[in-house]
């Protein structure tokens, strides 16, 4: 099938393209979607997009821009061209993420209990015990059903050959699921015709699955637990999502000031007095959860919450202390953790990583900085990052200074030519780089909703897909056959 309609100008470029194998060749599993889209005129694209944006604005799916005193709310740009994942590709991603989440969960239990992984020399002890995400307070604490990671967002990219690689693990409070569900909802409502002839797997059972898992980890096996979502409040950038999940699960959305700890139990203040809370899906970072146990200046937290938690009277989801598992330095060792705990080979590759804290790696980084991506281990959202091939010598030298001064806080990675997909940009179709964040839920099993959040770097040539830096999102289709 040759390119038609607005696609006749489209060129996949020297990258792996999610829809084309060559300028004139559409991937077979994308053919039904392509068949519809290639019939659309400019006006049709614009009309669908305008309707989508009105819908997003009305339902109020916005994110708050930090550093703006008036609390401006913005829409994340929505790209109307879905990203398609073939059934066979999804099977690999799914199995790979399950494996990774299982290994990381075993790792967390181990380092807060027996520390076998350190004794056996799989990871240098200092990197774990001295890591900023390792919380001494969690040593010896037992969590219900030994689950630390209930919700994971594992970021995946594709290289030049189309191989899926894990870029980053997020096992603390990963966000973005509300966009997955709303993107699907909006595209089925305003562009029903594009689903014609496709076998797209549904995603909207996520809140049900999440609620079932939250109930599964209730303290003392409580059969009818009281579950809440804990938010920092309306000024948090992901507030919409907190409210969305509470609404879809039909559970209260609480703030720190709604909760109180008495006699080692957590209660919420209701119009009828105090009511017991058993499971808290918290979207507040560890350090702000309890001013008595962590940061004393936290106004968001609940004094005594950690005591109630370690007494086993309330379950926090995700567990406290997970930060060490998605530390960008520990990332380098995850394939070893999979082999160590599961006796399996990793099913998903990852990006080659060098750690300046290891002498040999530092020498390599110094002589190859211009070919590497240099990253801060503790920042996210595309901040604190230097892309070697795009940097000047002076920028590189300056960055390396910081690296040498605090090697535990940095890492370097091979640059990966991210895959691209066709996007609607400035009235035409152009290729843009993208990634994928599938969401995994752990309860009795680790399950994934098909697909996840596809983020696109809408600026030409950009590799940064984060919403705070001009990224957009796409509906993500996993085909059932």
């Amino acid at each position: 099938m040759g390119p038609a309609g607005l696609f006749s100008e489209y060129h996949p470029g020297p990258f792996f393209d999610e829809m084309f194998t060559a300028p004139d060749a559409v991937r077979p599993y994308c053919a039904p979607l392509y068949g519809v889209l290639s019939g659309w005129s400019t006006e049709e694209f614009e009309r669908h997009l305008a309707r989508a944006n009105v819908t997003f604005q009305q339902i109020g799916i916005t994110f708050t821009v930090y550093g703006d005193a008036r609390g401006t709310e913005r829409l994340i740009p929505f790209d109307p061209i879905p990203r398609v994942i073939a059934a066979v590709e999804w099977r690999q991603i799914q199995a790979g993420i399950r494996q990774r989440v299982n290994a990381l969960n075993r790792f967390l239990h181990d380092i807060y209990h027996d520390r076998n992984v350190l004794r056996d020399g799989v990871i240098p002890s200092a990197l774990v015990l001295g890591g900023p995400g390792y919380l001494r307070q969690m040593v010896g604490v037992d969590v219900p059903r030994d689950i630390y990671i209930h919700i994971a967002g594992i970021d995946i990219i594709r290289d030049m050959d189309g191989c899926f690689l894990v870029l980053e693990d997020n096992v603390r409070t990963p966000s973005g699921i509300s966009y997955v569900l709303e993107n699907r909802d909006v595209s089925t409502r305003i562009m029903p015709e594009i689903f014609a002839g496709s076998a797209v797997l549904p995603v909207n059972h996520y809140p049900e699955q999440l609620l079932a898992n939250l109930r599964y980890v209730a303290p003392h096996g409580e059969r009818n637990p009281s579950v809440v979502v804990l938010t920092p409040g309306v000024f948090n950038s992901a507030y919409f999502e907190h409210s969305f999940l509470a609404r879809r699960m039909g559970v209260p959305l609480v703030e720190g000031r709604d909760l109180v700890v008495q006699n080692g139990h957590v209660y919420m203040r209701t119009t009828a007095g105090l009511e017991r809370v058993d499971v808290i899906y918290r979207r507040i970072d560890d350090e702000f959860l309890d001013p008595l146990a962590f940061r004393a200046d936290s106004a968001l937290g609940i004094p005594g919450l950690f005591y109630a938690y370690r007494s086993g009277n309330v379950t926090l989801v995700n567990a406290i202390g997970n930060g060490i598992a998605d530390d960008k330095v520990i990332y380098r060792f995850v394939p070893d953790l999979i082999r160590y705990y599961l006796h399996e080979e990793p099913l998903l590759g990852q990006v080659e990583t060098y750690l300046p804290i290891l002498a040999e790696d530092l020498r390599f980084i110094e002589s190859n900085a211009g070919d590497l991506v240099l990253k801060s281990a503790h920042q996210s959202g595309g901040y604190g990052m230097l892309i070697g091939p795009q940097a000047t010598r002076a920028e590189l030298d300056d960055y390396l200074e910081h690296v040498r001064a605090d090697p535990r806080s940095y890492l370097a990675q091979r640059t990966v030519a991210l895959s691209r997909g066709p996007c609607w940009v400035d009235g035409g179709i152009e290729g843009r780089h993208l990634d994928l964040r599938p969401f995994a839920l752990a309860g009795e099993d680790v399950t994934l909703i098909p697909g996840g959040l596809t983020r696109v770097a809408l600026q030409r040539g950009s590799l940064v897909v984060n919403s705070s830096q001009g990224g957009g999102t796409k509906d993500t289709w996993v085909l059932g056959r």
Partner: protein
Amino acid sequence: MAMLSRVAESIYWIGRYMERAENTARLLDVSLRSSRELATSFRLDEESPDELALILVATGEHEEYERRYGAVTEDGLATFLVVDQDNPSSVVSCLSAARISARGVRESISSEMWEELNRAYLSFHRVTSAYLLIEGLHDFCGQIRRASQLFQGVTDATMPRDEAWYFLTAGRYLERAGMTARILDSRTGELNLGADEPPPEEVHRWLALLRSVSSYESFRRLVPGSIQPAQVAEFLLFSLSMPRSVAFGIQRVQEQLEAIDLLLGLAPSDGPAVLSAALGDRMRDARLANSSPDGLNEYLHLVIQDCGAIGASIRRTYFENVPTGLVAS
């Protein structure tokens, strides 16, 4: 399961803020027009400061206004009561506060309610006093009234009759009852209750008063004959069929609070439901015909005080309530 106190409080305040925005807009609009008419038709003092200042007496913000604006002028009043973001009771501040409250409790109200509040806020929050001068205060006040009424309609059509509904409705009617009482109170000084045939400018003032609480037409329909001041005051205080009277509002408040207590299994002996029932009972048998102006004044102050006491009791009972004995779910 009972609602979170914070959520209940936010919803109650959404009801109050939206009602306050509408009441302030209507009061300002009617009072400004009436004072201009008085000035021309009855050749009263052109400035007529007392007439305008009564608006501030009704909203209870006289001192605050004088401190910041000085002399009472039409422009000053319009700025202070409509667009001044430092005045927490200005129309724009009320809309903004209602929207912030709604944003924090979106999982407890309908999407349609959120959309109406969001739309009202987005349409009006950037209005300036210059805009009011050019586009006309009257039109603007009309838009605010319609936005508030649209919100009430959408609420009525989409909100389940559960605890949240009762709190929202209680807030709305308590605000309205208090406002009607304060507007009446601001007028007692100049109005002669006993007059059988009041002079024309006084009739004009009574009519303006009725219009400022959107009750002129219903009064005419329900109370035949010439305008008797005591009848107007009784109508605004005691009518159980006119939705903006004090007694009507208090009766609605009582119903909501009783429904909440039933839902929560509470039987408070001195809670807000009991307070509003007592006030309602007292109003049912009251008459004004032979009251002196001082007597009416005193009576209104008691009513206003009772409204305040009901509000304080609602806060204590449902929002700050931490009982000594713990309730395990």
